[in-house]
């Protein structure tokens, strides 16, 4: 099981992944783990009884979890635990890997996104994703943002220009690139490229943002900017972030879920998870005793 999960990135080619390869995968989206009883909000995304297989190998085992709007949920766990596999189910990125099989339900606002009746492109517009390595198009800064709108049929230049500015502002990048809109996006720093990717997602007005280790390749200053941005974005979006960085999970998330060997071991309020987790395995992992 583990090998299959660890190999998932390679199978997905995620290190060089480009959103243009995926129909509709332009925006970002995420949600936070939900606990309606605690937070009084209906979940934006709910996973019920989710099992996932790479061929005959089971990578996720009976996952039940919800993500609420306007919250950040962190998913933590050791390499191969299934956290990236799980987050990619939320906008059906797993379908790019042949031989995979999903059981159970994943509901977005109550509608089953796993159903063949659900259009993947439309789903990925509502549930966007940001990856570990920034993956801007080899185009200008402006074109990177405009692309998502154009592929979704928007032709009004004035609207597109407004949206580009608005998205860059929301992504806290406008001040740094307002005079460089016609420059190549590849000339931006890593942190700027990552925020550009976030802006690109925001342009198509997603509802959920998924972040898969968004700061893994960034320096501390760029990381801090992304984290601040996530905290700003949660006012409007449901956000799910996969991270190996315990401190990052503690800093940015409202809820934290711990995955281990394909199982969801524990999920709860972030402050409780990091002060007094219920499960010994969670304690061992977050205190570095795991191994």
């Amino acid at each position, binding site marked *: 099981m583990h090998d299959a999960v660890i190999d998932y990135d390679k199978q997905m080619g995620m290190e060089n992944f480009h959103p243009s390869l995926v129909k509709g995968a332009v925006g970002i989206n995420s949600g936070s783990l939900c606990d309606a009883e605690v937070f009084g909000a209906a979940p934006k995304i709910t996973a019920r009884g989710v099992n996932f297989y790479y061929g005959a190998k089971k990578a996720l085992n009976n996952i039940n979890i919800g993500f609420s709007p306007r919250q950040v949920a962190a998913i933590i766990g050791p390499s191969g635990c299934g956290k990236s596999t799980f987050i990619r189910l939320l906008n059906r990125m797993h379908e790019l890997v042949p031989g995979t099989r999903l059981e159970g339900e994943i509901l977005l606002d109550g509608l089953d996104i796993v159903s063949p009746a659900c259009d993947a492109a439309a789903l990925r517009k509502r549930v966007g994703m940001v990856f570990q390595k920034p993956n801007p198009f080899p185009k200008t800064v402006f074109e990177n943002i405009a692309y998502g709108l154009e592929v979704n049929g928007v032709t009004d230049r004035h609207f597109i220009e407004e949206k580009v500015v608005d998205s860059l502002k929301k992504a806290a990048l406008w001040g740094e690139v307002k005079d460089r809109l016609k420059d190549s996006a590849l000339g931006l720093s890593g942190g700027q490229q990552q925020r550009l990717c976030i802006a690109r997602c925001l342009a198509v007005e997603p509802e959920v943002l998924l972040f898969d280790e968004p700061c893994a390749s960034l320096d501390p200053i760029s990381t801090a900017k992304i984290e601040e941005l996530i905290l700003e974005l949660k006012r409007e979006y449901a956000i799910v972030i996969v991270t190996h960085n315990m401190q990052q999970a503690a800093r940015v998330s409202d809820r934290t879920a711990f995955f281990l060997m394909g199982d969801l071991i524990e999920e709860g309020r972030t402050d409780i998870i990091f002060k007094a987790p219920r499960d010994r395995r969670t304690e061992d992992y*977050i*205190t570095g005793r795991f191994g």
Partner: protein
Amino acid sequence: MHRHFDDELRQLRGELVRMADMAQSAITQAVEALKNLDKDAAQRVIDSDVGMDSLELVIDDKCLDLIALHQPMAGDLRFITTAIKLNAELERIGDLAVDVAQRAIEVADKPLLKPLVDIPRLADAAKRMTGQAIEAFVSGDTALAKKVILSDSEADELKRRIEKELVYDYMVKDGSTADRAVPLLLAARHLERVCDHAVSMAEDIVYMVSAVVVRHHPEELK
């Protein structure tokens, strides 16, 4: 999996045990000085307090280093925050031993009002509770910590008995005994405060081990 961090935590635990030993020793010596009207012994307790003050700073610094450099989580975090609190409580116990020693010096030049019986008992309770609290800290024994918390009422009762005796059997009947009774009254008060600090330590230890808050929540002791 072995963690170097665990070695650091063990070292911190050892320093706290040393601090507790010093506090217990200070209480014992201060009460002995009071019983024996020994000014020199009392002065030694006062002079030795600087050692506890220094160790308190060392432990505090160690705790801050561990937090800053290791960003502890969960049980590790609770351990270190508890260590910070215990360190402060033990330093305060050391100060109370100094207070008792100062009372000993105050009464040393006069004959004792009466043979001391209940004050040594209260001192024994204070030492026992402090020792048990530290034992609970070292072993993670919440049952023992709860025992310390519940034994506070016995210490309170002992202190009330001492106060009642000194006030009604001596000072009310003969006002001239006040200069010898008041220092004993204060000594009892100091020792009862030691017991209170032991209880605070025990409450913190329960939280450290089980993440259950019993401070201000006596129902959690059941």
